[in-house]
């Protein structure tokens, strides 16, 4: 269901971080899909570029992107663009002034930022560029500390750091709307997390995965290889209720040897629930269980809105499933002691993924996504 907007035919520009290039487009597309909007690239679109112009959207759509994206640094309402500063000027003079005036009022405050990609500008050069924009009808007063409106001049000097042109390849100017959620990468860094394991997923990648999965508030999300719950932390941050399973009893219970350099054993507050508590999302915790992903314990129904997981690859963590190839000798009275850990056998990588796809087909809601890492081997 497409959300309705009041003012269309505006163009917006996303300024993206030049990182995880392959994951950016799926992230932005997924976030637009949550609004029922298509991805319509505007002028000069290049997937490798940090600047993406988008058509067919309204301000609300763009704000929902910036409220969730960790790939986008910021978004602006695009007023003008061009290959040269004179093209930019023509473009800006063509922009309807009724769209500009609400932000140029006499009693308002503003500032103009100059941002460049692939080149460093010195302070006087920035000032020169700001002064060159005097043809725009700014009526308000400049406030560098607390401006009501921020305008941004962006210069794109290409993507080759060894071949920086003297003049920018492209220039954009517009009204800053919002910053993306890259701060989450720092605030949720695994470095400061209470409970980590050897293969805890990086915070930035966890949030990208949650966005790829089109997580929305009140979803129920499952991770069948939950480990220390990094992916659940990200999903809970976006309003989903979370559950997970892992075959490893110690990791689920938060016991055993610590993964930190200076510690030997895990403390009492180190478990998945404590991780959610650390970030204020404990209310999104449903359950974790010790369970073998090869032998699912869930009733056959569309239970989960999304399944997000990082299965073991057999390199940094072992791939195993319950069962044994050897002859099984049961204890004489058929009763195992409470501390019995079931014998495990190898869980072949291809079986892991077949089982995961099979499981998802049976337990995801229609339209629900499965997001997972697939290790590939590239012989040099």
């Amino acid at each position, binding site marked *: 269901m497409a959300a309705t907007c009041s003012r269309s035919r505006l163009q917006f520009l996303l300024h993206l971080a030049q990182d995880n290039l392959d994951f950016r487009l799926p992230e932005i597309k997924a976030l637009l899909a949550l609004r029922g909007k298509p991805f319509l690239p505007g002028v000069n679109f290049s997937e490798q570029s940090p600047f993406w112009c988008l058509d067919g959207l309204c301000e609300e759509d763009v704000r929902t992107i910036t409220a969730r994206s960790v790939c986008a640094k910021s978004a602006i309402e695009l007023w003008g663009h061009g290959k040269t500063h004179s093209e930019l000027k023509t473009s800006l003079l063509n922009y309807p002034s009724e769209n500009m005036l609400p932000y140029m009022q006499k009693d308002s405050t503003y500032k103009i930022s100059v941002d460049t990609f692939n080149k460093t500008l010195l302070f006087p050069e920035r000032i020169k560029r700001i002064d060159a924009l005097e043809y725009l009808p700014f009526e308000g007063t400049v406030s560098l500390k607390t401006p009501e409106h921020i305008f941004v001049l962006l210069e794109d000097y290409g993507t080759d750091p060894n071949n920086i042109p003297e003049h920018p390849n492209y220039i954009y100017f517009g009204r800053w709307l919002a910053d993306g959620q890259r701060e989450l990468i720092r605030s949720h860094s695994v470095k400061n997390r209470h409970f980590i394991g050897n293969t805890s997923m990086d915070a930035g990648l966890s949030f990208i995965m949650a966005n790829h999965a089109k997580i929305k*508030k*009140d979803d*129920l999300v499952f991770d069948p290889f939950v480990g220390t719950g990094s992916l659940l932390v990200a999903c809970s941050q976006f309003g989903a*209720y979370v*559950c997970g*399973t892992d*075959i490893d*009893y110690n990791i*689920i*219970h938060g016991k055993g040897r610590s993964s930190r350099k200076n510690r030997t054993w895990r403390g009492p507050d180190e478990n998945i629930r404590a991780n959610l508590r650390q970030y204020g999302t404990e*209310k999104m915790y*449903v*359950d*974790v*269980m*010790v*369970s*073998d992903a090869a*032998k*699912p*314990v*869930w*009733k*056959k*129904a*569309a*239970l989960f809105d999304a399944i997000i997981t990082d299965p073991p690859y057999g390199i940094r963590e072992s791939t195993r499933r*319950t*069962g*044994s190839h050897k002859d*099984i000798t*049961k204890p004489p009275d058929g009763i*195992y002691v*409470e501390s*019995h850990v*079931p*014998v495990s056998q190898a869980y072949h990588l291809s079986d892991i993924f077949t089982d995961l796809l099979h499981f998802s087909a049976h337990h995801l809601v229609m339209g629900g996504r499965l997001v997972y890492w697939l290790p590939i081997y590239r012989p040099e």
Partner: protein
Amino acid sequence: MKLLTHNMLTSHVKGVVKGYPLLIKATEVKMNEVEFNPQFVSRMIPKLEWSALVQAAEELGHREDLPGELMAEYEKDEEFLKKVHRVLLEVEVIEGCLQCPESGREFPITRGIPNMLLNEDEV
């Protein structure tokens, strides 16, 4: 373990046909306050097997006034949703076990976490 999870679990013991719902034998149950979210409760109700939920709440002695039948038009009935919320998310089994109704096999629950692993000879 919360009753929302319990409602979605089934026995995977080899050869079992009627493995749902698992019986709960709890030795320690805790009430845990969780923020009420009517939208989430409404979304979960269609996924639930209502009689199994009532039975489980009854087994734990925490059914209170949860109705035996799911009424229509529950989305707007906040009082009803609050009752469902309490049973689904606020009742937690800390110690005990889940029992397969057909084979009798028990899966222990320790520190609120069920251990659903089968032993090597059961797989």
